[in-house]
């Protein structure tokens, strides 16, 4: 049995047909070809598939596609903001379209292989929206569900703290 599901992805109305067993992660990756959301485990243990669902951070591998009717999902693909209309103005700083977290991850070399990066960014953005001034310990515990095997977390934590400071205007 297939479910006809209507929801929004990064603000855009979307419709898909999905099987009962398909997860939101499957729907994003296989039906909508939004492959920025990664599968590291499929069991909610690694956080690589983190997305925002109605404003809550979740693992998209632990959500069924069939649940999605009327809901709103935000993925890594929606994190950078490109202006729709820019008149004749020449875009002098393309990097400014990136979210501060995305820029700070680059500046701090907070990624090596990059497979966990989308999940970390989505999760970190959720943290900073809730807590603009987190301590190192708060960042570490909030991100404990996002596994990284390359970096030892050091530079990720620094990048999040630095982005938080920049976003606070500090």
């Amino acid at each position, binding site marked *: 049995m297939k479910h006809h599901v209507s929801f929004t992805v990064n603000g855009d109305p979307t419709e898909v047909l999905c099987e009962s067993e398909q997860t939101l992660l499957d729907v994003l990756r296989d039906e909508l070809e939004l492959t920025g959301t990664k599968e590291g485990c499929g069991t909610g243990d690694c956080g690589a598939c983190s997305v925002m669902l109605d404003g809550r951070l979740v693992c998209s591998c632990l959500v069924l596609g069939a649940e999605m009717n009327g809901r709103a999902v935000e993925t890594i693909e929606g994190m950078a903001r490109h202006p729709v209309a820019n008149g004749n103005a020449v875009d002098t700083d393309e990097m400014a379209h990136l979210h501060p977290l995305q820029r700070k991850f680059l500046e701090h070399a907070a990624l*090596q292989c990059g497979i966990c990066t989308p999940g970390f960014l989505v999760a970190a953005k959720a943290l900073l929206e809730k807590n603009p001034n987190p301590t190192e310990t708060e960042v570490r515990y909030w991100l404990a569900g996002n596994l990284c095997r390359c970096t030892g977390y050091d530079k990720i934590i620094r990048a999040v703290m630095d982005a938080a400071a920049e976003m606070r205007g500090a």
Partner: protein
Amino acid sequence: MQEKIGNPPVEKEFKWIGTRPVRPDGVDKVTGRARFGADLNMPGQLTAKVKRSPHPHARIKRIDVSKAAALKGVKAIVTRDDFLDQQSEFVPAGEMLINYRDVVRNVMAREKVLYEGHPVAAVAATSASVAKAALDLIEVEYEILPHVMDVVEAMKPGAPLLHEDMITAGVNPAPTTPSNVAKQVEFKLGDVAKGFAAADVVIERTFETKPVHQGYIEPHACLANVSEDGQADLWVTTQGHWVVRAHCAKLLGWDISKLRVTASEIGGGFGGKTVVYLEPVALALAKKSGRPVKMVMTREEVFRASGPTSGAVVRVKIGATKDGRITAADATLTYQAGAFQGSPVGPGAMCAFAPYDLENVSVLGYDVVTNRPKVAAYRAPGGPIAEYAVESVVDELAKSLGMCPIGLRLKNAAKEGTKAAYGPKFGPIGLIECLEAAKASDHWKAPLEKNQGRGIAAGFWFNIGGETTVSLALNEDGTLNLMAGTPDIGGLRASLCMMAAEELGVGIDDIRPIIADTASLGYNFLTGGSRSTFSSGMATVEAAREVVREACARAAKLWDLPADAVTFEDGQVKPAGDNAGQHEPMSLKDVARIAGKTGGPIVGLSKINAQGAAPSLGCHIADVEVDPETGRVWITRYTVIQDAGRAIHPAYVEGQYQGGAVQGIGWALNEEYIYGDDGRLQNPGFLDYRIPVASDVPMIDTIIVEVPNPRHPYGVRGIGETPIVPPMGAIANAVEGATGLRFTSLPMSPPRVLKALDTARAAGDKGLKV
């Protein structure tokens, strides 16, 4: 805290080397654009799944796929019958060797299944759910055989034999009866008996470690497509796509030219993506079905059937005089290979005592097969196991001699001119500089609190060079395209662009780097052995210098001067010598504009077998706190000190140091493969295979020591592997400092630590500190 120590001789100020620019592949990785192994789809593609053995050891009597083949949506099925058998032939994979006779059997079981999770069939179907349903319809009749999981058990006479015809190699005369011991290796220097006789103190201990998995976050994945004329394409997450090409062509009996392999972005490998699992199967299914076939392992499959590194038993004996000079060192290493021969016992034996300048050394290693997944390379394969044991004994030796553990190590440290037990004499190496930096660090001097301890351990890794091709094309507008062939796992493209930019006097944004596919560039050995920045860097410099030579030649032609009358300085081509100042200097942009008219495109192409790789040595300081009531060990402070030769992009060097350290922390404290008596893995997921999470670890401080490698144009040493070598020893030594107890078995997980504490309490152990 990140520091840099050392003063490498510099002929001139660098513009790029040693800076921290944003990596060229970075934006794609923070926006979700970067495509990894599972991120590519093709029209009409099928999904394939693997049927795996539920038994750790059984003879396959019959495989019947007829019911599965009849299922609607099933397009192809392969079993052992679809792969040619292979002769015994060893080929390199990273620092390890593999044998094609075994590879074909690991990819698809033939006579027997040798571990739980061993593939027995694969199905390509129109959807994952159809493929899964088809797997259930495949009938496999097994004759279940007794299994053996432990190396000590596997070596006993009468143990179940995995390979009935396996005769131990490396023993003279060769044994006449088969056993599970595939190979014996031995390295000797001097006379250990004499050395021990001269010792005032001798310490001998036996250690045990469990298999641990590389734990890359991206599961194995590939997408195969084969045309009717036999031309094939493979998209795959791998550390070496030329190596994948070679293995697949060999296993399938195809010409190498027929197969083009493209490396996707790779989501971590750590050695585990140097071998093939799904790739030949996907190609066989694609050929059979005439459709593109995508295969992605589940995390469970990754744990059950892709390579962890060995569990091992290691005996170490070291003797020293009262003043702390080591007189003899002796070890026996017994490593699990998994189902097929080829544990990293060889490199383990080679680097066991490599950090030390010793006269008398003897190391004996055994490569033992057991009913577990075949091990694969894991970051400094073999080294961490051996050096954990050695560094634990060195620490105990320092205690028994009343010496500072750094002092003892300094007294015996390997240095330029030291002859290693495995053969070579070291060139300039930086262990002494690292130990001095450790001694001078704030960390080493900081006070400890109750229940805390501090440990230090040294580490060594060889590093390799090898076959490498890089091309650098000057575009019409003066920008450049760089093609390398060693997959970029952690910032390689940034480092290569920096070296090219340094040579050419251009900006790094002027260079667009890619990892080329196997049809676009000459052969490249894989990313492994910490070789990619070293080897591809060396080739990049050569290619850049060829661009410079060609640019000079073109300008010479334009100016009608002899070629040697033109020089390249500060990114500009200039007339030199007597002709200096006769013509306006030309930038590379200017040269690019005249390239067509002066002889055609300008491309630097370097094809080398990179020589002169130099080892990287270092030491780690770990502070721990032990909860005396639960046995839990916390890492409270950690510093990595390591010789990088020269850090091209220091942030990515620090990243390697930090990442390796945290993998080692996991290995030391919680990671292990847990099997039941039934030979089945009980923790095939990140829930119970416990890699460190962000809240488990502190910031990892780093001190980059730079003792340049004279055989690399920028002094580079490979640095990626050494960081996982010292942590287990450093942490074990710190736990000893905190508790007074020496742990000779990994992981030091809470139940083990608490049991040891309680046992010591019950025995009234006076040395117990908590």
